[in-house]
């Protein structure tokens, strides 16, 4: 029973996640950029602008300039999350690639550090009046959701180990549309349920910042307005032509 329910849930979550994101990304990409608005000083070439975006994505460069605490917790959270995600690839890949095998022994460490960072981020929301002022219910809930995912994952890793071989068989089965029985430990069921929930809300929440960072004109535009004309939308171009 659990197997069918969770399989259905994950198919649904995948459709919502991939489909929802695709729609939103297409929307971002289709919306015109009428004017050139890089925040300067900015790189003068497109390659430079690409590197600027990369340094935002990888190092959170602007956040570092802005506030060292938010940067520290935010960056640690994202990096450990990335590492944990890489580690989870072993449930979906057979044979397990070396890179994934390499991070394998540190799962507990990453999980703990990630949880610490999440607790710090959540505490800031409660404790710093400026941040409390701008926080909505969903901001607390999203952090809470991530925290619960981390905690249930840690439980699976360190307290109530589940049948990993069976879990992997379930995951591989999902990908091949060949359902395999899912172990029914409660920690695992909770963990998977929450992950599916996160996938579903992703495209409809401010988690959209993940694709958003690549589409921000103040960051991804090159500062070359004098050298290269930034063509305006047709409506404005028509006015110039008439003039």
């Amino acid at each position: 029973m659990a197997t069918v329910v969770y399989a259905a849930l994950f198919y649904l979550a995948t459709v919502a996640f991939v489909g929802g994101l695709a729609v939103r990304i297409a929307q971002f990409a289709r919306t015109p950029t009428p004017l050139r608005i890089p925040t300067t000083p900015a790189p003068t070439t497109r390659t430079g602008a690409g590197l600027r975006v990369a340094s935002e994505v990888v190092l959170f460069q602007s956040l570092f300039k802005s506030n060292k605490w938010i940067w520290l917790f935010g960056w640690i959270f994202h990096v450990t999350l990335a590492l944990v995600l890489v580690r989870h690839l072993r449930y979906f890949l057979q044979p397990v690639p070396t890179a994934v095998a390499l991070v394998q022994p540190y799962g507990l460490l990453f999980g703990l550090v990630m949880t610490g960072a999440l607790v710090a981020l959540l505490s800031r929301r409660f404790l710093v009046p400026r941040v409390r002022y701008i926080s909505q219910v969903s901001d607390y809930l999203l952090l809470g959701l991530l925290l619960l995912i981390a905690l249930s994952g840690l439980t699976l890793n360190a307290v109530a180990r589940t049948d990993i071989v069976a879990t992997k068989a379930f995951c591989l089965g999902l990908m091949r549309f060949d359902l395999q029985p899912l172990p029914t430990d409660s920690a695992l069921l909770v963990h998977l349920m929450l992950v599916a929930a996160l996938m579903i809300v992703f495209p409809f929440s401010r988690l959209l910042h993940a694709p958003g960072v690549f589409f921000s004109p103040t960051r991804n535009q090159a500062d070359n307005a004098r050298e290269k004309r930034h063509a305006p939308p047709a409506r404005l171009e028509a006015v110039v032509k008439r003039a």
Partner: protein
Amino acid sequence: MAAPDAPTADRSHGDPLEMPALCPGAMAASKPYPASPAMQTALGFPGQLVEDWHDKAIARLGELVNGSRALRVYLDSCVKCGACTDKCHYFLGTGDPKNMPVARQDLLRKVYRRHFTLAGRYVPWLVGAEDLTEAVLADWVSYFHQCSQCRRCSVFCPFGIDTAEISMAARDILDTIGLGQKYSNEIIGKVFKIGNNLGLPPKALKNTLESLEDDIEEDTGVRVELPLNREGADILLVTPSADFFASPHMEGLIGYAKVLHEAGVSWTFSSYASEAANFGMFIGSTDTMQKVALRIRKAAEDLKVKRLVFGECGHAWRVAYNFLNTLAGPLDFLDPAYPIPQHICEFTLDLIERGKLRLDKSKNDAIRLTFHDSCNVARASRMGDEPGGQFEIPRAVLRAVCNHYFDMAPETTREATLCCGGGGGLLTDELMDLRLKGAQPRMRALREVADEHGVTHMAAICAICKAQFSKVLPKYGFDMEGIVSVHQMVSNAIVLTGSKQAEELDAAHGVASTAS
């Protein structure tokens, strides 16, 4: 907690970036005067609040979001990390939480969420979505006119979210439903009718320029021309109209004229485009901005010039540097050997570096100087070939013309520069309280260098900054004349060929005067 008091000499001391206590509602009463029906209709907006304002506003918001990737991405991507919360000078000066950039964005974002996102439609309470009520509309009028569109927040946001883009969109919506702002709309009307923000007609302009020629001649013994509408000149110089009119702007204008004279180029002003500033940007209307920009193109074509040079004006330079080519280009009838357009500071520094200007730095020895990076030059444009030239070039000019130069604290200059407090269409008397409070961080940074290095003057390259500082400096215990134009400093130091000053200098050095 009490709202911070009006600025006094005491408030002018302390850490420029000191965090205020939150004072909700402290600035709710700060509002610009509404534009009159005549001012509104002159720009093609409804004369007063339209009956179906709610639906019109939502429809316009939809159009704007569909027409601007920046707006869409910024409304969707904020993670409420709080990094920007202490970056706005209006928040630092007022403590009103709605002046935190993210909270300002949220005033628009909550309505966007309500109408354009799934979560906002079905579970508004969860994501802070709200209907556009009269109270929200009142907040828009109030707080979107407490943003000078200076982009300081954008520098510090991990996604580069630019609150200026959001303020512009909000003001566009307000105009569309009939709630325009008097100051900006009245001025744009004057540009359309007369050619400049001040409403200075061509005749008066001509007289002004002639009397300036007389002044310069009296001062130096050299007739430096300030030509108007001279067809076939090489360069069209476009400056903010304040340069024709008030101190310390005019002294800057004299500086441009002297530099151009020494360069030996032919140049001219245009009465049709006697305004560099483009307030279409302030009200977020790309169409209006384009109409104003096209005037400059037309003037350049009519006068058959080869080059376009802009005077000292922050927002004007942003529009000229980044938008002119897009909105009124391609300007391929101009000479591609020169930057299109060129900033007067680029022009001057080039001459200095090539040794074409004779400069007597000692003429500025009574002045101990610092430089205010005007935000729209600093964060929304460039000078020179390298990123950051907008910081180095004006400083290089200043260092070449004066002996005592000191920078303010690094967290208050260059890309982190603090707005003067009067930019973005807020330079109007009814917003004086806001302007004074918004200037506090900059005034404190100035106080630091005044105490530490005995700085007496601050140079700026923006007409609005200069006008604003003339007003607020005295309130913070400085001399009103402590604000100077960059080219005013150049004007003081420049030794015109054949001038009295040249003779004196030659005599002092025991050299025979070349002029006699």
